[in-house]
């Protein structure tokens, strides 16, 4: 149990730093801003209590906000995403029991399951984030395009990370 705990804390710090020091500095036209740090929420174990899920998502978001001076922006998107997560999982339950200590992964749950799971959650997060950021409907379609392109890039990074961790993971 403690190893899971430590592993997640390590992942938390790594993803925040990766986002702040690398991804935020990458210029892919004005439309694409991948937010790969939410991979942390995707990978929290199945059996995590929902209050802990919400709290850790909030902490994740507010930590990132501190680095970009947008207090509350990432936090609210992350909290909403964490709130939706159990519903998404139960809506695509394959009938088999999930191991409580295990994280959702491409290998254990299969491509279809994982794609469905990550696409929905990433879209929830990105939609909230980008529309909250502009907070007006004047640039509705531009923002829509930004959401879609950025989600695509975030998902690409998520899948690359999944495939990279493929051989080392023992089910």
């Amino acid at each position, binding site marked *: 149990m403690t190893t899971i705990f430590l592993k997640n804390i390590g992942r938390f710090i790594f993803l925040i*730093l990766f986002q*702040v*020091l690398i991804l*935020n*500095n990458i*210029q*892919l036209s*004005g*439309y*694409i*801003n991948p937010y790969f740090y939410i991979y942390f929420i995707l990978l929290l174990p199945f059996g995590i209590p*929902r*209050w802990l899920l*919400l*709290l850790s998502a*909030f902490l994740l*978001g*507010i930590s990132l906000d*501190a*680095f*970009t*001076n*947008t*207090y*509350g*922006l990432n*936090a*609210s998107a992350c*909290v*909403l995403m964490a*709130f939706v997560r159990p519903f998404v999982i139960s809506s695509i339950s394959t009938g088999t029991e999930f191991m409580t200590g295990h994280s959702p992964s491409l290998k254990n749950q299969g491509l279809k399951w994982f794609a469905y799971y990550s696409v929905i959650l990433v879209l929830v997060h990105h939609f909230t984030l*980008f529309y*909250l*950021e*502009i907070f007006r409907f004047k*640039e509705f379609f*531009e923002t829509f395009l930004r959401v879609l392109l950025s989600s695509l890039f975030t998902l690409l990074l998520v899948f690359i990370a999944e495939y990279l961790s493929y051989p080392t993971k023992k089910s």
Partner: protein
Amino acid sequence: MRYLLYFLRKRYVYFLFLALEVLSLVLFFNYNDYQNSALAYLSNGITGSVLNLSSDISEYFSLKRVNHILAEDNAKLHSNRSEAFYKADTESFYHKDTLYKLEYRYISAKVINNSTNRRNNFLMLNKGQNQGVENHMGVIMGNRIVGQVVSISAHFCWVMSLLNKDSKISGKFKNNNQLVNIEWNGGNYQLGEVKEIPKHVVINIGDTIITSGNSDIFPEGLLIGTIDHFTIAQEENFNYATIRFSTDFNSLSFVEVLIDLMRQEKDNLKKSFKSSNR
């Protein structure tokens, strides 16, 4: 009562969700107040030291360009030295200078975090309260504008760059002094929008827009950009133009914070004016 407790316990996740969501939304929409709070002061210190470390590494990559800019500035300053002038009549050059009084002081600062790809962009600088930086101070690079200070800590400050929803710059055409407002609508970080140009103003591509000096933040005459293209509106009363910023926001490395030595005086004047008009 027991039922209520039971209900609360059963639904606590929803309440927690609502509480956290409301908390973050309150933070987000009141961020202007929050930015000046003690907590922001503390967290700016922490994030600042992390970002400072990373910029210590990345600054080597921009050395070449920075040197180039410095050399240009040096040349400009050299040509302003008294040795560069031909003394036609020694007597006529002498005057006791009471016409001029120092109004602005500059603090050089390093940009340790910057973005151009968000809707609302901020820069972090490695100078803070201990070096004399205060909120609402203007930030420039050479004679081009960058933004204004919005949040400070002991050694760092956040600057709202021009590339921000809340940033409205009062500018004017250099050739005919017509006042305009400049905003940024997201997307390309090199292009901004010039709002509400009166119909009678003749616009040409390449016209220079400078700061008007009407705001308290920037003095008059700093470069904002040049007109890239414009549209003559048929039905509205104003024309619109797109401006190409003179500042390359994506490659900022060293900037200057403007300290307005007469700000106190201006503020007091404004305050007394407001209270007498009530």
